[in-house]
């Protein structure tokens, strides 16, 4: 596979070149640290932050989109064309999350065209982490600060230059397109990358993750959910900042005979999430709703997809207005599993 280096002084030029016929999404400075934004001016790109406050999932799975429009008795399809897109500087956890979303939106052979139209045209350049963030735990959930899953190119910040490793054909094509700006990586570069990778992985904390699915099932009636439910405010912050949460709602918005069918993000923490048309709600308490969020990620997803739907980015922890910490919950669930 292609391994190149790019002098950091040329990053802007690199992005300008590749952004000529693509939409470019990259981290920019924000009052909450950094955020992914569609960037027209590459000089705004900021690669010094770790995890952006919101995940980049919106690039392929927007918060809301129109599925089709309708007027009185006929419906109009929306065009499914999407532009070539470069997602630059996503951290390996976020890239891995895209790989998980891919599984959901192609589950059991049923493709979601709205998701796939964007995803198929998105080239992901992931940026490996040299130091972990305040709530990072990627290695505990099977990830790595230098992980490759979900990315087309993996980049390393080597101080003066970026090392770029193509991981897919799309990634290789991307690097070839910018070959006038890059150099072939030397053995020294490759060694530096190996060292940086080892350093980065060492720095991450290890937390216990409950992996005994039968024990997790048993935890359904455990007492711990009660207090967690009292603490949980029932907002959608954790789900909306999460790179793997993918639940959505579909509603019709009409105005005088004209309307649109809209798909929008939803959150299992909301009390209306499971409210039936009949008025019955199977999840009546916040405890049941909080439990759903944790068990969906660590029990139901392993059952359905073979792996937990958490990449350890820590956004739900840094952003929870009630100070809930998923790591602490997982630790308690793990010790519960050992007892039973």
């Amino acid at each position: 596979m292609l391994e190149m280096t790019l002098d950091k002084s040329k990053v802007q030029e690199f992005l300008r070149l590749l952004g000529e016929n693509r939409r470019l999404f990259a981290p920019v400075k924000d009052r909450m640290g950094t955020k992914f934004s569609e960037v027209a001016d590459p000089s705004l790109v900021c690669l010094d932050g770790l995890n952006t406050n919101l995940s980049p999932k919106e690039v392929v799975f927007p918060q809301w989109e129109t599925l089709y429009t309708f007027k009185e008795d006929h419906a109009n399809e929306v065009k499914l064309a999407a532009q070539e897109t470069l997602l630059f500087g996503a951290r390996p956890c976020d890239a891995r999350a895209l790989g998980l979303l891919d599984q959901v939106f192609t589950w059991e052979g049923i493709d979601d065209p709205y998701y796939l139209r964007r995803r198929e045209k998105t080239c992901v350049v992931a940026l490996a982490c040299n130091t972990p963030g305040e709530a990072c735990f990627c290695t505990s959930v099977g990830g790595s600060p230098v992980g490759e899953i979900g990315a087309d190119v993996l980049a390393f910040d080597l101080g003066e230059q970026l090392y770029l490793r193509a991981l897919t054909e799309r990634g290789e094509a991307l690097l070839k397109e910018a070959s006038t700006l890059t150099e072939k990586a030397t053995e020294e570069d490759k060694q530096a990358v190996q060292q940086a990778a080892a350093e980065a992985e060492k720095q991450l904390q290890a937390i216990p993750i409950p992996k005994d699915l039968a024990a997790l099932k048993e935890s359904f009636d455990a007492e711990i959910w009660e207090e967690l439910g009292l603490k949980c405010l029932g907002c959608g912050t954790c789900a909306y900042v999460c790179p793997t949460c993918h639940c959505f709602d579909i509603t019709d918005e009409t105005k005088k005979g004209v309307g649109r069918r809209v798909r929008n993000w939803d959150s299992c923490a909301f009390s209306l999430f499971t409210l039936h048309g009949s008025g019955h709600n199977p999840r009546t308490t916040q405890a049941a709703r909080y439990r759903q969020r944790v068990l969906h990620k660590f029990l139901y997803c392993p059952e359905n997809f073979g792996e937990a739907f958490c990449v350890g980015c820590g956004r739900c922890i840094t952003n929870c207005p009630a100070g809930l910490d998923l790591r602490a919950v997982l630790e308690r669930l793990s010790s519960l599993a050992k007892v039973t």
Partner: protein
Amino acid sequence: MKQVEETLRQEVAKLLEDGTIDVFVGHEAASLPLKTSPCFVRSPKEVDRLVWNRICTSNLATYLPQLFKRPVGLKGEWTPPKVGVVAKGCDSRSIVGLIKEKQIPRDRLFIIGIGCEGMIDRHSVGRALGVVGLADAKVDDKSVQVIGTDGREKRIDIADVLAASCRECQHREAVLSNLTIGETPSSAPEVSHYANVAEFESKSPQERWEHWVGELSRCIRCYACRQACPNCYCEECFAEETAPKWLGVTTDLSDVFVFHLGRAFHQAGRCVDCGACVAACPQGIDLRLLNQKINKDVEELFEAQVSLSLEEAEALSSFRMEDDQSFMTEP
């Protein structure tokens, strides 16, 4: 402050032991620096979980109504619990409001008031750090010593990272309590009240519009502001009603505006400016300005402040002949 924390723990242990209360709602340390989490203490053995420091930012009144709701599916007799809670000035005013709005019963509540010198706003500390995260922090009376995830240390004056609400707070002691502990807080700051609103009002309509377009285009409709607010206890929020449907579900500006303006109107004469909405917002939107504008109007029109006592009628839930009626239009 350590001493106040110790006194709090002792008092709560006594209350739980002698059966005055069944559960105490307080703050406990959260795992990240400069963060606390609400906690529910049910046994004297657990009182060491309770903390009292400059990061007890949450308005605990928000967590009270749920404790007085009959458990779903429970048949037969049910007696609501006796609940203790620690209250800053703002928490106590929200409690007064909730009692008056009949969401929590006064006679089942034991309120421990603590004078407050203002709480640290974690978002402001984050902004002082820039794009890196907060690895560690130590707080003393005057400053916050922070270490970023890049390893750099920084000492920040505590006054620079106090929550905006706290900087202007005029009610630093609980207005309703069964017991007060700690020292009397220093007198209210000499910050001109509603300075932020006055400054905003002096702008042109175009500038004001641009300000709110900028702020509200950040909104992700997570409803953290609403959920953290003690006044937002509606079983079904207008934002989610479907018949009639008042607004759409998207993050289109028109939908976001309707939500935030609608919520602000529902706060008229009820908001105690605790800052919970601002602290909860994951996008750092300054919602306080909106609520403060309405508070200022209520104060000017009705010469009333919100929820200062159980006895006094609230401006918008009472009528006086001398009330301002300039807003009325001819039929």
